[in-house]
């Protein structure tokens, strides 16, 4: 197999994730953790024995306050990311997530074969997301949507602001808050499973491919084989993508 790589790749530094994408990513990670932790507490509060009077304690109150503050940040951050899917560089574009042709599924299959099933074959060398990752992010975006709808649907009756009130139709459609809370709670588990797999695969790619996958979400740079970069630029040129090389 090694013989396939007879010629030596040149690595090129490619500015893949722009600053807004990175900020979005880490902000999202932070509030997601906050929402999951407080969400668990809200759904099943721990026994914290105390001899304090109720008037001196506000444990659930704080948990809910954090949940709702994080929820607003989560929501506006999510809306921002949708917007960036139209104005950001090609690696942030919505076409990375929503299949627009057969090639997308072909690439998914290729990634499944090599990375997940670990069959022998030619590695797919993408620059931004690979198609499988992009497709799974598509589902996370749907889950973000579900979580925002159900969350603000529950929040609507606790608020006097028009924004949450816009969601008061959600409990009406699902037949009341009991159902909305169920959906809200089940969807949380999607995020937990996603985080485990996502973090693992980031490390996996870094470990196997050595292209700086992990640090790319910090600095924005990935180290891409010249060949792969050229191919990527040919299929969908984007002059905004910064690289090291002067032209």
């Amino acid at each position, binding site marked *: *197999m*090694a013989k396939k*790589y007879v010629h*030596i*790749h*040149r*690595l090129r530094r490619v500015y893949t994730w722009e600053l807004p994408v990175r900020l979005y990513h880490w902000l999202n990670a932070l509030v997601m953790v906050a929402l999951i932790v407080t969400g668990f507490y809200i*759904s*099943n*509060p721990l*026994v*914290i024995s*105390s001899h304090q009077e*109720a*008037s*001196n*304690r*506000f*444990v*659930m*109150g704080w*948990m*809910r306050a954090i949940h709702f503050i994080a929820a607003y940040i989560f929501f506006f951050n999510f809306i921002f990311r949708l917007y960036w899917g139209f104005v950001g560089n090609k690696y942030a574009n919505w076409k990375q997530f929503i299949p627009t042709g057969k090639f997308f599924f072909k690439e998914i299959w290729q990634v499944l074969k090599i990375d*997940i099933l*670990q069959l022998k074959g030619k590695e797919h060398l993408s620059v931004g997301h690979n198609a499988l990752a992009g497709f799974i992010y598509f589902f996370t975006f749907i889950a973000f949507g579900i979580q925002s709808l159900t969350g603000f649907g529950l929040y609507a*009756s*606790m608020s006097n602001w028009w924004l949450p009130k816009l969601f*008061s*139709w959600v*409990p*009406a459609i699902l*037949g*009341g*808050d*009991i*159902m*909305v*809370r*169920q959906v809200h*709670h*089940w969807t*949380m*588990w999607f995020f*937990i*499973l996603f985080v*485990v*797999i996502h973090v*693992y695969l980031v490390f*996996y790619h870094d*470990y*196997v*491919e*050595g292209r700086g996958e992990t640090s790319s979400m910090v600095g924005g740079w990935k180290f891409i084989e010249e060949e792969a970069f050229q191919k990527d630029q040919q299929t969908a040129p984007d002059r905004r993508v910064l690289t090291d090389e002067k032209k």
Partner: protein
Amino acid sequence: MSQPLTYYDEMKNKGYSRRDFVKFATMMAAFMGLERSAVGQIAKSMASKPRIPVIWLHFQECTCCSESFIRSSHPIVADILLDQISLDYTETLMAASGFQAEEAMQHTMNKYKGEYILCVEGSVPVEADGVYCMIGGKTSMQILEEAAAGAKAVIAWGSCACNGCVQAAKPNPTAATPIHKLVKGKPIIKVPGCPPIGEVMAGVIVHLVTFDRIPQLDALGRPKAFYSKRVHDTCYRRPFFDAGLYVESFDDENAKKGYCLYKVGCKGPVTYNACGVTKWNGGTSFPIQSGHGCIGCSEENYWDNGRLYERASAFAGFGIEATADVVGGIALAATGAGVLGHAVMTNIRKKDNIHMLEDEGKKEEKELDH
């Protein structure tokens, strides 16, 4: 021909004083959450307007709504709104029966076409052509259709008429169906609860009489005045909820201290009703005050949505009942195992590959140095 009697006339005939009447109007305004000027408006309407004809139908139900209504805290509610004035037809309480009764209903339907209020208590079974609930040779569906056709508005009393209630629980053998799914093109006021609070029911009727239009409804079709807040939002145990102090079991120390019932299954946080404010039995108490969690009786599907004494709702599946956290925990363990397996595989099968890639990287680094 004599003038039709007004509500006030009827009250006087029954022996109520002017003072009683004004007290009643004041109480109703308070229950409806109206401002003070509304007291005069209510009094004026009831003193000047002829009674609204009402047809009150009973289908698949237990009559707890009627019971609640006639036990409303103010005697005028029972005496005037129900007993004397409005009910032109109601199977449970009217004196007439059989042919006479059916004729009375036909009479009201024809004479007051487009004016009468149709109150429905109970759900309509539609399975097997509706044979599960027949009155006077007609199915409840037929009766409902006929009566709704000429109604000004329809009031769905209680969870049966609003959501189907217990008779609609899985597997719902009679296909018990709520009213809003069967009657189209008429304003429908849903007054859920098992039963609804008597004062709430009276409030809805008084609103219709006073303002001549249906009360403001929320997205689910319930009057906002009574159903816009959760039981949880008006519960006197709420400070314990916010403090994180919960009853863990009904016989523990915390229960004695009156802590929040959230963890023993209180459905107050997902239930929209006026129990915390209006309370029951003339403002005596309400379930939570007597130490029992809310069971969510005014919410759709409360009978199938999980257990009454547990916080997390369980779903039936895989032959057992499991909560989201049980399923999630298993999925998490499976995912962890998958990740671990994958990592091991990666190291075994791609060892060469990694060496190769590393060598390659090193070579390239060297090359770049030149």
